[in-house]
């Protein structure tokens, strides 16, 4: 660590070297300044994409139930969407244990808010903002919560949908997705989403996204839940699977037309 830090020319923090070098330099400096070793860890059990969208009456969110241990599909019944308070719904991809820790933080937050007993309650905007600060604070300590979170909700007729990443990057949009969903689901959503989606059309659109992910994301599994939040509260569906079709001739004999030496 010391060696790396002292190797960098003193006045080149900005502009000259690449981002990764700069990060390393800053990283080394921090560990020297604070006299602590780096705290960054890596994830053990992870969940893959979450996809969510606004529809006519609220928010719809989908996530599969796989929990991967590296590339091993270790758990097959992980609930990755949970209601938060009265007006919010949280979905998570990334480290499952970190997600459960976040749920504990939120439970306490909602409980203490409830104890004021003043008839006020935290809405999705407040919960999202809280999560934003928690994630950013942990990245500042070089000990991130290894998740991408999606927060949806409805309060006072206002729909809300936002997301936060591991390092605190956050935004709102009409539809959001995490991880692979950013590559595979959002193009579909950008093409087909509109303000007045009915519940049925919203579910159909989410299922279309989840099917694309199932075919192309190796850590996705065919067991998913769809959650809905409206002014009336949260409903999370029972786990179910999507219909798939694998009988294409190219799937049956993938080596045909690509003859190798073996």
């Amino acid at each position: 660590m010391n060696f790396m830090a002292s190797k960098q020319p003193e006045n080149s923090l900005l502009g000259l070297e690449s981002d990764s070098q700069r990060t390393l330099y800053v990283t080394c400096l921090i560990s020297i300044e604070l006299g602590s070793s780096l705290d960054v860890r890596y994830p053990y059990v992870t969940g893959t994409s979450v996809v969510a969208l606004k529809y006519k009456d609220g928010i719809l969110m989908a996530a599969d139930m796989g929990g991967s241990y590296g590339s091993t599909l270790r758990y097959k019944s992980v609930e990755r969407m949970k209601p938060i308070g009265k007006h919010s719904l949280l979905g998570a991809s990334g480290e499952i244990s970190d997600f459960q820790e976040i749920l504990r933080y939120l439970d306490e937050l909602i409980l203490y808010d409830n104890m004021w007993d003043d008839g006020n309650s935290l809405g999705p905007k407040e919960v999202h903002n809280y999560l934003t600060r928690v994630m950013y604070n942990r990245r500042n300590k070089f000990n991130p919560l290894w998740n991408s979170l999606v927060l949806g909700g409805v309060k006072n007729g206002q729909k809300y949908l936002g997301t936060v990443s591991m390092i605190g990057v956050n935004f709102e949009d009409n539809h959001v997705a995490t991880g692979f969903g950013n590559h595979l689901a959002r193009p579909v959503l950008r093409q087909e989403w509109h303000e007045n989606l009915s519940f049925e059309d919203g579910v159909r659109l989410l299922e279309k996204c989840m099917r694309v992910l199932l075919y192309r994301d190796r850590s996705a599994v065919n067991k998913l839940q769809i959650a809905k939040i409206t002014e009336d509260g949260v409903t999370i569906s029972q786990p179910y699977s999507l219909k798939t079709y694998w009988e294409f001739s190219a799937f049956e004999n993938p080596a045909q037309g690509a003859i190798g030496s073996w």
Partner: protein
Amino acid sequence: MPKEQANWSPYDNNGGSCVAVAGADYCVIAADTRMSTGYNILTRDYSKICKLADKCVMASSGFQADVKALQKHLAARHLIYQHQHNKQMSCPAMAQLLSNTLYYKRFFPYYSFNVLGGLDNEGKGCVFTYDAVGSYEKVGYSSQGSGSTLIMPFLDNQLKSPSPLLLPAQDAVTPLAEAEAIDLVKTVFASASERDIYTGDKLEIVVINADGIRREYMDLRKD
């Protein structure tokens, strides 16, 4: 278990370009609304412009989470200022505060590239331009962010600011009328979004003059 994640970094570059132009009695501050990471567009409608005081506006690109933290910090500092002095902070004062705030984190910097624009105490337009660790300079116009390499030389060519070495010191404000400055800003963003993949979707323009603050929008390339 083998490590599959790429090395963790506390930073990201979410792209975007910012421009500010000062005139005799106005200031134009503009930024696009695209937010990206790598080759992904995260959202097409994220405002990079933040109103810090009545006559002071900041546009920032770089790492969104740091930018948000910086904006919140400055908003809190400005609230304290109002309680202590019962007035709005002036633009040059905010400029110094921003510099100090950035330098305070010199060894774990806010990865944010800012331009600050507004009116000074005489009602004249002013622009301040920064690097991530707080070096700053008062100028007549400036550009920061991913498209700044395309925009800045174009502004130099069109506006030809007087050399800061001239004696007696020359005024840095541009000779343009307000409407001309807005047109110029629209042109530079339309051009930057042709070549810079991190600039696009929509342009947000904030105009500050004696009447107050006005906002307008223009569509940019979405590809």
